[in-house]
């Protein structure tokens, strides 16, 4: 069994994020970069599947990231947690790629690596579109088992609980397949000191778009199928009314809700 976990380097959730006025793309230098939080749950899920299947002899885990130089840190994080090796797709032409373009690069890498299971986080905390897993499934022809809150591998079948607005659906598909996980599916482990030391010796392959057979004209700002026309800081909300409850807070709030016709 072979698992590929896709990870994305994103600006820290807690940092103020900005767009770069030069080309309307995310200013990635303006904030500290971290591995996308939900991808840590995907790495942990891969490690748990590996443990259930009997360890690295039975199942290998490759961490895959597409992104600039710094994205190697996210691959390293996966290796420190316990993944076996890494693949970093890096190319100057990638800057400004939208979701369809990014999904094409990931799909090309996945087709090359041929894993049984692709694991991803269900959204990135920067773009928050939640569409890349479905797009990669579409491009690679793999069944999509997205928004998984529980994953079981049963021989050649993968079964997940797909979280829905009303609860969850149990969905299943034959391998090879693509799974995206939600947070709280597990408790991602912290890398141990031993894990951090071991990660330094684990192999990371660097690939360019040419290595994957992806035409540079189909990615980056020029190859994207949507574009930001303009952006502006949201005008600050006009200061609201704040009252301190002295026994009449609820009545005052009710008055406000009445004038706004919510009651």
């Amino acid at each position: 069994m072979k698992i590929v976990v896709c990870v994305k380097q994103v600006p820290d959730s807690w940092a103020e994020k900005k767009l770069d006025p030069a080309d309307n793309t995310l200013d990635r230098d303006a904030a500290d970069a971290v591995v996308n939080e939900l991808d840590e749950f995907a790495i942990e899920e891969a490690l748990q599947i590996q443990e259930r299947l009997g360890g690295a002899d039975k199942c290998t885990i490759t961490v895959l990231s597409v992104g600039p130089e710094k994205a190697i840190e996210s691959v390293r994080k996966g290796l420190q947690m316990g993944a076996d090796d890494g693949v970093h797709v890096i190319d100057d032409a990638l800057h400004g790629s939208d979701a369809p373009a990014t999904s094409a690069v990931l799909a090309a890498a996945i087709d090359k690596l041929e894993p049984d299971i692709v694991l991803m986080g269900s959204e990135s905390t920067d773009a928050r579109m939640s569409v890349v897993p479905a797009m990669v499934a579409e491009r690679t022809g793999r069944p999509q088992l997205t928004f998984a809150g529980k994953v079981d591998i049963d021989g050649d079948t993968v079964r997940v609980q797909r979280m829905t607005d009303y609860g969850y659906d149990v969905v299943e598909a034959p391998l090879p397949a693509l799974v995206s996980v939600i947070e709280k599916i597990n408790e991602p482990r912290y890398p141990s000191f031993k894990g951090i030391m071991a990660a330094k010796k684990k192999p990371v392959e660097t690939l360019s778009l040419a290595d994957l057979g992806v035409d540079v004209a189909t990615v980056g700002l020029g190859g994207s199928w949507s574009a930001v026309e303009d952006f502006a800081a949201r005008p600050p909300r006009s200061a609201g009314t704040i009252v301190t409850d002295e026994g009449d807070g609820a009545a005052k709030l009710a008055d406000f809700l009445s004038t706004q016709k919510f009651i």
Partner: protein
Amino acid sequence: MAEVLVLTEHADGDVKKVTFELLTLARSLGEPAAVAVGDVSDDVVAALAAGGADTVYVASGTEYSEHVVAPTVTALQAALEASNAAGVLVASSADGKEIAGRLAVRTGAGVITDAVGVSDGFVAQQSVFGGSTLVHSKVTRGTPIIAVRPNSVPPEKNAGDGKRIELTVSLSDADRATKVTERVAQERAGRPELTEASIVVSGGRGVGSPEGFAVVEALADSLGAAVGASRAATDAGWYPHQFQVGQTGKTVSPQLYMANGISGAIQHRAGMQTSKTIVAVNKDPEAPIFDLVDFGVVGDLHTVLPQLTQEVKRRKG
């Protein structure tokens, strides 16, 4: 005028409110045409006509609910081929966004999600980075596909012709690869769906315990609202994760959002900042949530909320 396709969200013969909102939006962009898949009764078609659809493209069959996302993409693609549509609108729900994404890949068209408005020429308005930045985006290739958040426009009843056209859809083996074997509904106590609700009443760290959510739920029920929770509350196990509002949880954009015992960290703001009216109850006068509110009460939610519930019930008679 070119058609604008709207993917219908419907369940048990009822068309969801967001579909009427999208039909209203479609009317401002072209000729509204609904696409409905699955068990499409005459009632569904009639509701779509009343909501403004001049044409209703129908792909009937049980396979749309037996499999995940992909069959609906194939049906939408068939509707695109059968029409002269200038654009496609879907609800920016989990399924809606995945359908939009796969359709974009399949048709070689650009896709925009989480739009809070769409204007002439399919220019989408989005609110990003926890609501701090407003962005206008445009699809630059193919027929634009835009996923629009619920509650972005008020639905107008402007009846259309509602002409029913059956689509011929041939599903592939790949469309059928992911099979739904069971559906598990979790108790929502008759409350509206969180992402669709006009009013959302949320609780956070200040609620203090699982039992504490009773006062939040009671207020929500008096207002006909959905209940949400902050990450602090779901992390503590006080309320189920599916109700989490914020980054890595649900994004809501209701007419009224009530944050109770929620400090208003950026993590939470990312999920609610496009709400039209925001009110908060919090003990801490320095809580950042008060920077966002139209009306705030500095006080203990365990005192204020039960009183407010009584007051709402009294005023509603």
